[in-house]
């Protein structure tokens, strides 16, 4: 039979997973030969594992071809709301690979890692100064773990006052990230949901009622500010005062810190504990899902409860210490040190002046998008937004087109969609976060695309979006099938 090649285009990079490219005897490394010896494992040598057998060029080609099926911030606009997909400077990567920082072991004698500890000390100082909060722990591995550490600090503070048993309630707005209630539940707290009001904010009267009702049973509140509707909680100081009036603490989810870094000091508005996502505000790369890093900052009086270890300076020496009444250890060793290097490099590059500009430009860009799209898409909450703007599909829904279709149309037009169907407080949410590292031209192109999509839908030509995307390496994938009969390994996929 004659071979007929498929007409797929020169840049359509298909590749089989490596187990299917396996050739008996092939290997991608050259390791020294081992002379025969008696093994001392107390067992027989393992027989078959089942790994592929491929040489180095095959491995490189496979992963390069796969990479071409990925969208990335380096390749295009990525306005995922509450994810802060900003440019990831390569200087950060270069610094994180210096042998004196990358090739050190966490259990080395502290005299041999003074530079690393100094770096961590500097980063603690930056975060403390930016927030006005007294003490910082770099231990948490990611935002969600920062939340856990922060809530543990709060729990420990209540415990010290003998109130842990009675303070069981945590107040969380309905617009919060899923990690907030999940974290509070992990800590054994009972969650009372604060409904958002018509402005997408915490309603002060409702909050007062919750305080009056639960009083000293409240351990704290977890509030994202700016919140996930893209709004700054304007009553935040009153809210903080109310929570403090019953002896409870204000935990701030710092996922949206990019909007206010260098513009508002969280300590000033009454925050007691806050986490940072270094992989959002401070430009460490998302890496297709991680690693993140989620340091926390706390008021000075809570410093003794921070997770262990903490870097302190004694004379001219830096030391890893366990805070006096530490809430415990949350991660092995010293936190995501590699991310600490990248974040500090970024902070030094921007400086205090540059970070303020980061916030301003991110807010400016989001408001610019809002101003251009507000007549074509439903804006659930009036007024200026912070660094992200929230739209819904209400106007498009009447024509049978949903947020999902709009997102998939964007994919077809070469732009990564915004965050969709979150926050849950509005139907068909589209949360758009442009960040400060996008040019006006890029933002205009996004706006033009969104305008085009809205007009197509308006004029009844939007039905084709149900079918989109059509030009991507894969079209819409069958989620139901994936969940119904899970195939999670290649052994299961024959």
């Amino acid at each position, binding site marked *: 039979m004659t071979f007929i090649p498929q007409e797929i285009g020169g840049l359509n990079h298909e590749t089989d*997973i*490596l*187990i299917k490219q396996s050739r008996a005897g092939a290997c*991608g*490394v050259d390791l020294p030969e081992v002379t025969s010896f008696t093994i*001392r494992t107390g067992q027989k040598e*393992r027989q078959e594992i*089942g*790994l592929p*057998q*491929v040489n*180095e060029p095959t491995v*490189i080609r496979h992963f*390069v071809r*796969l*990479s*071409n099926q*990925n969208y990335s*911030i380096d*390749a295009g606009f990525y306005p995922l709301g509450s994810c802060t997909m900003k*440019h990831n400077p390569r200087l950060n990567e270069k*610094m994180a690979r210096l*042998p004196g*920082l990358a090739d050190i072991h966490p259990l080395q004698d502290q005299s041999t890692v003074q*530079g*690393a500890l100094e770096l961590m000390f500097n980063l603690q100082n930056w975060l403390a100064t930016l927030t006005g909060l007294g003490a910082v722990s770099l231990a948490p*591995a990611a935002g*969600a773990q920062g939340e856990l550490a922060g809530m543990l600090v709060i729990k420990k503070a209540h415990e010290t006052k003998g109130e842990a048993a009675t303070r069981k309630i945590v107040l969380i707005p309905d617009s919060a*990230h*899923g990690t907030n*209630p999940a974290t509070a539940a992990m800590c054994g707290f009972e*969650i009372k949901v604060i409904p958002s009001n018509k402005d997408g904010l915490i309603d002060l009267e409702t909050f007062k009622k919750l305080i009056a009702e639960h009083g000293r049973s409240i351990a704290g509140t977890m509030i994202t500010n700016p919140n996930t509707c893209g709004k700054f909680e*304007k009553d935040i100081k009153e809210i903080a005062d109310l929570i403090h009036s019953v002896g409870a603490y204000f935990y701030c989810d710092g996922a949206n810190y990019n909007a206010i870094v260098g513009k508002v000091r969280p300590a000033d508005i009454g925050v007691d504990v806050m986490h940072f996502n270094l992989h959002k505000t401070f*430009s460490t790369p998302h890496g*297709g899902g991680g*690693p*993140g890093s989620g340091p926390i900052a706390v008021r000075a009086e809570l410093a003794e409860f921070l997770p262990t270890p903490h870097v302190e300076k004694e004379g001219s020496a830096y030391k890893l210490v366990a805070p006096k009444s530490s809430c*415990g250890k949350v*991660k*092995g*060793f010293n936190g995501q040190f590699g991310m600490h*290097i990248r974040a500090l490099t970024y902070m*030094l590059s*921007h400086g*205090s002046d540059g970070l303020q500009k980061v916030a*301003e430009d991110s807010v*400016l860009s989001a408001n610019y998008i809002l101003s251009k799209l507000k007549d074509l898409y439903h804006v659930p909450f009036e007024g*200026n937004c912070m660094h992200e703007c929230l739209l819904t599909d209400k106007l498009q829904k009447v024509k049978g087109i949903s947020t999902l279709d709009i997102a998939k149309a964007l*994919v077809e037009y070469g732009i990564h*969609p915004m965050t969709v169907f979150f926050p849950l407080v509005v139907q068909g949410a589209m949360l758009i976060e442009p960040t400060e*590292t996008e040019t*006006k031209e890029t933002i205009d192109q996004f706006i033009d695309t969104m305008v085009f999509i809205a007009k197509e839908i308006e004029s009844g030509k939007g039905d084709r979006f149900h079918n989109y995307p059509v030009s*991507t*390496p*894969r079209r*819409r994938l069958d989620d139901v099938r*994936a969940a119904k009969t*899970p195939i999670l*390994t290649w*052994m299961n996929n024959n």
Partner: protein
Amino acid sequence: MRYLALTEKDRKEMLESIGVSNVDQLYDAVPEEFLLKKPISNLPSHQGEIEVESFIKSLSNKNRSASEGPFFLGAGCYKHHIPASVDHIIQRSEYLTSYTPYQPEISQGTLAVIFQFQSIIALLTGMEIANASMYDGATSMAESCLMALRIKQGRKNIATIGNIHPDYLEVAKTYLDLNDANFVSQVDESCAAVIVQYPDFQGEINSLDEVRKKCDSAGALLIVVTNEIVSLGLLESPKQADIVVGEASSLGVGLNFGGPLLGFFACKKEFVRQMPGRICGATVDADGKPGYVLTLNAREQHIRREKATSNICSNQGLCATAFTIHTSLLGEIGFKKLALINHKKACDLADALSSVKGVKILNKSFFNEFTIELSKDAAEVNKKLLAKNIIGGFAQGNKMILAVSELTSENDIKTFAQELEKILN
């Protein structure tokens, strides 16, 4: 400011388009007294690459890196050679600067990597399934305890057998305390699970068959923790377990002063809906072409909120990618050979130390790490070794836990044995 994209002209035009005269007007929801007009003082202003690089390098130069001389530290974080291709691939923008693959049509690269990662972890551990990664071995073990408590509802204890990494125990304790659950040493019907480390913290290789029997009679799950994944190229897979968790940073990731590392989480298929973290699954697209998606999301925080199996969101995606590339390069032949070389080096070290007066090897069996008992305090011995530019093992009183790898040279072993002899005698 090199990372900012707007020009002054852009800013002016955008402000005009919005209908405000300055950016602070956009912060109108922020009470006036809290809005900072000037950059925060006590922090330096912006700097160019030259200045920043020079400062960070000065910090780097103050450290003694693991490659600067003989090095015998392990204890949960192992120094191995990373092929050059690994770092090259993970620095590609498409892996480095993409988000969690929520839009599968334009994330098949990341998803296919996760699918292969899950497969490799399942094969190595002898489990049916694995998730897309956890923060590190310690948090992975903590999550495995929580999962066991969910599966064995009503039971409040977790039994530990033998030597388990102290950091892992400490982290797990933080998580267990929140559930009023405890670590115990007695295996009985109050235990949701039994944990055994394989090889254990002191490098000893425990028989899993015996522990499995204990679990079966108590109706408890068996959790096996492996923090040197290379060992699974020589040792039998811990297939007796219900859950296998641990650390995979030995391959592709490196030391990084202890983070980022790479936690893995594998288990029997029947527990899939109790697993924490992200899971990638195979499916087909609208044209029937095979592809991948994140699946079984109903376990996770963004769907289930307070009822989620864990609060984990970000994981160690890029580290899992590095691991997958490194493991693919090794493949079936290389992985087993690497394990064998590691074990051979440990045997060589044991042989070299057997003639040193004041040193007693405590292990009956080991992989690439074992424990010696010294006639002097191990921390003091380490200080003296350091003066000779040798980084010794992990000190525990008079005991020292020594790790080697394919990077340990004959000369490193010889020097170490000689210096130890001098220090002890």
